[in-house]
């Protein structure tokens, strides 16, 4: 009960401090404190713009990650009953002109939100991490970006990542290829910056696990006969022998034609064919059907990797509050990276955050469009402390330095 009185006293102090504000909700019940999450988006975020392909096809459609956060809050209701904490979510959409860190601090003053689920563009995330690096009262969650520099040179002690890094995703594909002995790889990539970066990450994984890249080719979405060595799939895939095609196509408009069109009968991994994700709606082990059905019932859609990351952020914080019997942001933050934290991500093994870069270590699902084919780490890939750390940059390789920020 000691923690209870601690929470109560903290809340009453906050209430006193904010006594002037008329926007305060009715004072929390005598024994119940309030813990506020904030879901933050950016106006006109390109990620959420409708991206219609030719003939009006929707090749990919982004859905708000708020749904999953609300689901997790609902699930935490009974945990709140035990800890006598009421969990709440507020929402904010940044205007085009808003500075991210100023806006977050303002929201913190007004709503008393402690944990921020950031569904915002990469640049915003990096600048928030820099500007708020010394903040003691905020905890930010990256629930959407796999960008490796966020866990490396651009890491921030206030940002936690529930979404897996691209390095983790690519490592899981590489592990699977090792297991299948499909070791000669032809890499095809688009001309976008993201495609190049993803290919670089994959090449790093290939080296890490001793596979072999037989060629890297860039494709172009065009009908121009002068460019046929970059537009014709047979020409792109027929000049050398290989076991498997790795495809990096973050746009998806070209890559979707590659399976079944390659010169040789070889499978495709990466952006098409076998993909690596944090979550998949057909995952049927470790309690996943229950989570998928809950999500589906609530949102009338299928849960994806980013939804899972949003859900996981809320679940890990609420679980931490109940376990440590405190709502103190610093205490939560140090619990998240502690060895004793064992969060249930519905992927079969307990997950917690890497101390060196605040990345959630987690299994990765390798799936096709309607089935999960394997779960990485693949059996047999071992690590001196935790097999989950065979995925992504391990501590000695990490360029993240929290003190440096």
């Amino acid at each position, binding site marked *: 009960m000691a923690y209870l009185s601690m929470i109560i006293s903290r809340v009453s102090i906050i209430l006193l401090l904010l006594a002037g504000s008329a926007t305060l909700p009715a004072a929390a019940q005598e024994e119940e404190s309030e813990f506020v999450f904030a879901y933050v988006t950016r106006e006109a975020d390109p990620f959420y713009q409708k991206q219609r392909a030719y003939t009006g096809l929707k090749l990919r459609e982004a859905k708000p990650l708020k749904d999953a956060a609300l689901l997790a809050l609902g699930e935490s209701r*009974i*945990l709140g009953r035990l800890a006598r904490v009421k969990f709440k979510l507020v929402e904010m959409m940044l205007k085009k002109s808003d500075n991210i860190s100023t806006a977050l601090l303002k929201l913190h003053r007004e709503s008393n939100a402690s944990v921020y689920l950031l569904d915002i563009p990469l640049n915003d995330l990096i600048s928030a991490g820099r500007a708020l690096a010394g903040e003691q009262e905020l905890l930010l969650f990256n629930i959407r970006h796999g960008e490796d520099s966020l866990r490396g040179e651009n890491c921030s002690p206030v940002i936690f990542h529930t979404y897996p890094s691209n390095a983790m995703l690519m490592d899981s594909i590489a592990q699977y290829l090792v297991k299948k002995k499909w070791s000669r790889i032809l890499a095809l990539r688009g001309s976008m910056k993201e495609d190049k970066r993803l290919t670089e990450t994959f090449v790093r994984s290939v080296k890490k696990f001793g596979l072999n890249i037989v060629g890297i080719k860039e494709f172009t979405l065009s009908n121009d006969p002068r460019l046929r060595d970059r537009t014709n799939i047979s020409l792109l895939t027929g000049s050398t022998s290989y076991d498997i095609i790795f495809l990096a196509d973050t746009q998806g408009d070209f890559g979707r034609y590659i399976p079944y069109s390659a010169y040789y009968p070889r499978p495709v991994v990466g952006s098409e064919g076998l993909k690596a994700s944090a979550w998949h709606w057909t995952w049927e082990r470790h*309690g996943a059907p*229950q989570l998928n059905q*809950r999500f589906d019932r609530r949102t009338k859609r299928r849960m994806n990797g980013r939804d899972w990351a949003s859900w996981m952020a809320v679940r890990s914080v609420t679980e931490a509050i109940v376990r440590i019997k405190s709502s103190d942001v610093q205490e939560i933050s140090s619990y998240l990276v502690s060895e004793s934290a064992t969060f*249930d991500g519905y992927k079969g093994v*307990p997950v917690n955050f890497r101390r060196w870069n605040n990345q959630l270590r987690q299994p990765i699902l390798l799936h096709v469009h309607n089935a999960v084919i394997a779960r990485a780490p693949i059996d047999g890939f071992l690590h001196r402390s935790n097999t989950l750390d065979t995925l992504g940059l391990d501590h000695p390789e990490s360029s993240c330095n929290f003190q440096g920020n």
Partner: protein
Amino acid sequence: MCPTSFLIDYSYIKQLRLRWVIIFLVILFICSFKSFSSNARGSGRTIISNEKGNTLTILDSSDKIIQTIDTCTRPRGMHFSENRKRFFVGCGDDSLIAIYDLATLELVGRITNVAQPETFDLHPNGKHLYVSNEEDATVTLFDVTTGEQLAEFETGEEPEGVQTTSDGKFVFVASEAANLVHVIDVDKNIVVKDILVDTRPRRFALTPDEQELWVSAELAGVVNIIDIKSLKLIDDIAFLPTGFRKEQVTPVDVLITKDGVRAYVALGRANHVAVVDVKSREVIKYILVGKRAWGLALTHDEKKLYVANGLSDDITIIDTDNLRAMKSIPVGLVPYGILIDDH
């Protein structure tokens, strides 16, 4: 039992030759003892629910498959009725509980509108069934004679194991996703306590003296022990069969023998059953079984332990005297629960 039999049969003695009387009495004498050590009671049948196959596999007393019957979708938890003439099957994807006649294996009733039932326990009054509704974060109370829903209790997400005490005063419910054990006070008809336990609590076993409640924590790889008087966690038992990593050990079903000496714990992904000395809380042995062992059942004489292996679609039968697996029998897709009719 023997003196009673003697008295009943005394009237026949005059009509029978002495020789036959003696033989008869000797047989009676043997049978009355023998019945404690064989599983000849009941029909001797074993019923297995196959979660993904939507079937029930029926074994006879010699563990041969005699029948496979189509049942509802996602059959999981099962329980005998009080008089053991019927049994209940929780049909997860049909949101109902099917009631079967044990002798004929015919469907004789349904309790409907039970949101995704997973497991349940029958209150000692024989009438009240406490059902965990996995998707609804509730436990519902049904009258099995009328099918009427009598009460609903809010729990954490994914309630699973349900355990009533023999005095009928308390019902314990494990909430998998909230890491809580809820305590329902039957008289007050409310949840009186939420106990925080380790990650992903699944199933229960009470020690015969009902002083300790054992709870398997699947993702933590341990069994938590709750003291019934204080309703507090007092100890854990960790499991680690040779050659396995901690995260592969995912205990689910727990059974404690009637004499309270031994416990059996199905270790899920570690493909073993742990045998525990209840008093010292130490693991005596790990027995290799099939893949993802979850469901457990003991014969009435506790000589045989049945283990449902969800990912190898078979059951393993263990001889509890020498603690060895005797044989495994292929059943349906993803076997989940086991009932043995040998009382």
